């Protein structure tokens, strides 16, 4: 069974929740960090990397300056403005190239080839409590996050006894390709939102995407007491959509301390937010029947 934690807007508290769930469940769960641009979950836990694999998420066109006859057809068909006239021949602007192949199709001199690009690495980490964390680093500026996320999720499913365990997925921010890859085929989701106008707008958009992908979704309102009126509005919206609010986490300075010391919030004894997260964990477990 798989549970994904989502938020739409970044920084609403996904990783705070996931790291606490990870700590509370220990060996019973497998963890996947789908924020491959900026993976943070591993920073909270001690662990050792047991497997690293290179990942290629896209291709780039390369023009052979010796073979190029400067006809300009490649530039004319490129829809990504990725080809410019160089000193000797046409050349590819690497960071604009999507590796789509159009230039190669039209080149009469056979001077263009596509080459796999190094886009990142997949990493399997064993945490101190002997549970697995599947994660990745996408190289800055690289393409192919959606594909990389599919790969690390696949790696988590191939682990021993993966089918009998709960897999907890830390989703990526936004609503685009990486998010879709994070939630495809996932049964349960928790959307973490905050009572701000931005948080509420972003929450509505991510909820629609989760619904489209048939993820059974629940809601957690973080720092709900920062703007109680806005929290009420969010709850009202949830009622209208028959979405269950699993918990409301109060503002708690201990959260900053836990971020600063990079430890899961639930290890702090006197955290009111941590207490609420423990209750949320119990609720989601009973919702999932585990």
């Amino acid at each position, binding site marked *: 069974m798989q549970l994904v934690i989502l938020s739409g807007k970044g920084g609403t508290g996904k990783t705070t929740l996931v790291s606490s769930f990870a700590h509370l469940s220990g060996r019973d769960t497998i963890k996947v960090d789908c924020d491959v641009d900026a993976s943070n979950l591993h920073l909270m836990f001690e662990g050792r990397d047991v497997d690293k694999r290179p990942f290629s998420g896209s291709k780039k066109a390369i023009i052979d300056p010796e073979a190029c006859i400067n006809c300009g057809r490649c530039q004319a*068909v490129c829809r990504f403005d990725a080809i410019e006239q160089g000193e000797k021949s046409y050349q590819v602007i690497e960071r604009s190239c999507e590796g789509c192949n159009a230039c190669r199709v039209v080149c009469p001199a056979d001077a263009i080839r596509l080459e796999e690009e190094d886009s990142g690495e997949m990493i399997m980490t064993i945490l101190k409590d002997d549970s697995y964390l599947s994660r990745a680093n996408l190289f*800055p*500026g*690289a393409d192919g*996050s959606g594909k990389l996320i599919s790969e690390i999720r696949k790696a988590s499913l191939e682990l021993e006894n993966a089918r009998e365990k709960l897999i907890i997925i830390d989703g990526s921010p936004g609503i685009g390709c990486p998010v879709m890859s994070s939630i495809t085929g996932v049964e349960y989701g928790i959307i973490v939102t905050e009572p701000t106008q*931005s948080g509420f*707008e972003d929450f509505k958009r991510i909820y629609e995407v989760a619904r489209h992908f048939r993820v059974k979704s629940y809601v957690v309102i973080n720092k709900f007491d920062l703007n109680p009126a806005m929290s009420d509005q969010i709850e009202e919206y949830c009622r209208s959509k028959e979405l269950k609010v699993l918990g409301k986490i109060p503002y708690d300075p201990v959260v900053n301390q836990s971020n*600063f010391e990079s430890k899961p919030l639930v290890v702090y004894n006197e955290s009111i937010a941590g207490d609420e997260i423990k209750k949320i964990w119990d609720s989601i477990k009973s919702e999932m029947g585990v």
Partner: protein
Amino acid sequence: MKIAVLSGKGGTGKTTVSTNLAYAMGIDYVDFDVEEPNGHIFLKPRDLKESDVNIMTPVIDQDRCTLCNICVETCQFNALVNTGKRILVFEDLCHGCGACSLACPEKAISEYPRKIGVLFEGTYEKADFFSGRMALNEPMAGPIISEIKRRIPKGRDHIVDCSPGTSCNVVKGVDGADYAIMVTEPSVFGLHDLKLAVELVEEMDIPMGIIINRSNEYDPLIEDYAKDSNLRILGKIPFSKAAAKIYSEGKLLIEEPAIKEIFEGIKKQVLEEVDHAISHS
């Protein structure tokens, strides 16, 4: 002058910095976070003109198609599948590159514009406002960002509010900037993701400075890193529950006199840095 605001980590305060600074400087604001755009909440733009963003998507003329499979082999995004009876198009995988129709020897592939989002152009109190919004259940933000970029008049000073992360969409935002502002927060995560964003901007050879949001006044984690990396700290926005409340209501922080002063300081530093960057390029 083009200033890009980015962060690596989500939720560190990119939009807070971008909107308040654009307002303080009186220059155009451009929202490139088309997946979850929020700039409009704070700048409240007027006279918004909405237009569609389309990408060209293939249509197969099944009468002409000979199932030769060349289009399927040409497509790098697995958007075309040969079932043995016909060619199917998976529209949400299509990048709209046109390679399939160029490759088809039977001229059986035409294209139609498929809507993937919308674009907004308007004005806010001080200057112009540009943003976009990706349609729900669409995967690709890139073409929308590129389209917004085309709409910005040449020579206009503007601030670009990038999407979170360090992916190719962030590169689109930072590309061509005279200066980059890295927004971070004083936590291990903030620092980890800041380093990734710095790596990206360094590779693009764009000068940059750091703003620490939710600052504890003294933030050794970030300050030591900035010192070691020779990066200037442009300003610190203190953590306060009052500021969080103002933000939650969708208001600009600059309405608070104490914070206004901070942004005036940031503006001065940014202008100095940009001047320096432009005169040295």
